[in-house]
């Protein structure tokens, strides 16, 4: 078991013919992901190393039975591409694109919320990896192996750092989910925590948050009420000054809201252990896994 992507994934890539799109599509395919098609308007009928390209998502779904979309188009086209994928019946949309206008994200989120068969992960995220099964996105899969730790994170490279520290202590992962660093992520920590809670393979959950917004505080509440599996958390941005965006569009402390300290306190108040460094997160995870084994 794992969540979101696995051996049943049938991936269609929007922006497959772009430089980055082609590179990462072939990378995902090389990992063993079932990449069935791609979409680039005006390039229908072509192929990318044997992967057929279609003009529309509707054509791609009809011809290849795609159930998962990866969005790799530039920001100004991304919202439209997400909406097209949903309209064509895709069930999981993974949006890698960084820099989508916030009002576009707002419209997409509110539209998709009327369809309970679709899930959006991202935008501005590294994607989803279920080691040994499927990789949808840009996560460097070589650093991860299959195992029982589920990881959910707002940041890509921070996920690799934490994942690597876990791997050095002998842990593998059920699934690694990057939910992205934008103001309106399609899936929140809560959505992914709920999936990990239901997933048989996942025994321990690591969540990596950062400053800005209130997603970590909301997750703390949710964990207290509905997650029985142990959760270890990390928060980045204790030294971030207020009013400055720290790289991610969503990572900004405005006034007193969204500080790392507030998030840490909210999590600890509900019994979630928070590591102060990526190394400490892995140490706590190891300690908990040790007690699980006994």
């Amino acid at each position, binding site marked *: 078991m794992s969540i979101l992507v696995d051996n049943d994934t049938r991936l269609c890539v929007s922006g497959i013919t772009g430089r980055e799109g082609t590179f990462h599509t072939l990378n995902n395919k090389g990992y063993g992901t079932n990449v069935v098609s791609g979409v680039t308007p005006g390039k229908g009928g072509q192929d990318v190393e044997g992967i057929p390209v279609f003009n529309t998502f509707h054509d791609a779904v009809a011809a290849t039975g795609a159930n998962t979309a990866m969005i790799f188009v530039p920001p100004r086209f991304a919202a439209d591409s997400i909406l097209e994928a949903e309209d064509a019946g895709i069930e999981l949309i993974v949006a890698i694109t960084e820099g989508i206008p*916030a*009002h576009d994200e*707002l419209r997409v989120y509110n539209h998709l919320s009327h369809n309970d068969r679709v899930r959006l992960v991202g935008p501005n995220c590294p994607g989803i990896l279920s080691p040994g099964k499927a990789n949808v996105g*840009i996560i460097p899969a070589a650093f991860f192996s299959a195992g029982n730790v589920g990881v959910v994170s707002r*940041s*890509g490279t921070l996920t690799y750092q934490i994942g690597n520290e876990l791997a050095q202590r002998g842990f593998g992962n059920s699934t690694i989910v990057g939910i992205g660093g934008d103001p309106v992520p399609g899936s929140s920590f809560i959505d992914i925590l709920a999936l990990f809670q239901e997933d048989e393979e996942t025994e321990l959950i690591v969540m990596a948050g950062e400053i800005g917004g209130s997603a970590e505080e909301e997750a703390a509440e949710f964990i207290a009420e509905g997650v029985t599996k142990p959760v270890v958390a990390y928060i*980045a941005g204790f*030294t971030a000054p207020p009013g400055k965006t*720290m790289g991610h569009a969503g990572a900004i402390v405005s*006034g007193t809201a969204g500080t790392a300290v507030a998030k840490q306190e909210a999590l600890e108040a509900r019994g979630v252990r928070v590591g102060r460094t990526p190394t400490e997160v892995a140490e706590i995870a190891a300690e908990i896994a040790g007690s699980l084994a006994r």
Partner: protein
Amino acid sequence: MDLLEYQGKQLFARHGVPVPSGAPATTVEEAVAAADEIGYPCVIKAQVQIGGRGKAGGIKVANDRPEAEEHAKAILGMDIRGHTVHEVWVEAASDIASEYYASIVFDRSAKRPLVMLSTQGGMDIEEVAERDPDAIARLHVDPLLGFQDFHARRLAFEAAVDADVVRPVGALLNRLYDAFTAEEAMLVEVNPLIVTGDRQVMALDAKVTLDDSSLFRHADNAALRKTEAEDPQERMARERGLTYVKLDGNVGILGNGAGLVMSTLDVVAQAGGSPANFLDAGGGSKAEAITQAVEVILSNENVTAVLFNIFGGITRCDEVAKGLIEAFRQIEPDVPFVVRLDGTNDKEGRALLAEAELPNVHTEATMLDAARRVVELAG
């Protein structure tokens, strides 16, 4: 991107939000000419992106030409909590009967715009929220539906605005919502929203934050950026497409990916150091970007040591190493560097660095060790 008050008012005016007439000025002569044109009494207001301008003496009423000249002289060039006044806004004085508050916030948690209205304007709204939360009427709007007239009525009645201005306040909210969506703002705030003696409703102040990611389709808004108010290092970085935030310390930091860089700042602080900057070289950085990033970091004179913390995914460690080697060739830095490379092509990257034998470059195997080392070297 935050707009100055007058830029916000001009943006409001484009969408039919009533604002007092006025003109910007960058010199005393321009300010006096503007005051003559507008007529007396008028108000001369410092244009800086910080609150508390009035208390700092940055907002003055001029009753005649000599007063206009005196105030313009005093305000232009003054320092308001670290912000130099380069520009003033000269505006017709308003006859204020009541001060209300209105705002529209991009509410990330609810994933909807949040419209707020209160009759307790003219003061810090966070204080009002704390003291008397019921004094602020709030309403979330479905962005697919948009702001409807009934929304406006509900807010106006709930906030208990004077009965005779329910309609014009509602109309102003409607236009404010137009401005919020059409210009792709993260925040529009009017404090105070005034009712004049002759019962006109208008925005006496304007605070507008625009979404940086949307500026590619708002060329007119993008052109409003005041580069003289920007930190020189931050401008240099922005022009090179790097994400850089200047901080107060002395440890220069470069990493890839916003989360990892934030984490690196924290780990350096925990090791007893003080970061001089946040710099995200981004995913898939090529050598040239790394070289430019080193230039930006070292252009800050406070920097006494630099930490490279890279976990390569789509970024290749050999490209990072090449960029650093090239930076040493071009700039010949006189501060020590600590480099930690992990991930894609890390062996190749470390081999390149070992071969180059750069003076004063130290490699460390882990993020924690690298942070401790750089703090030691920074002194």
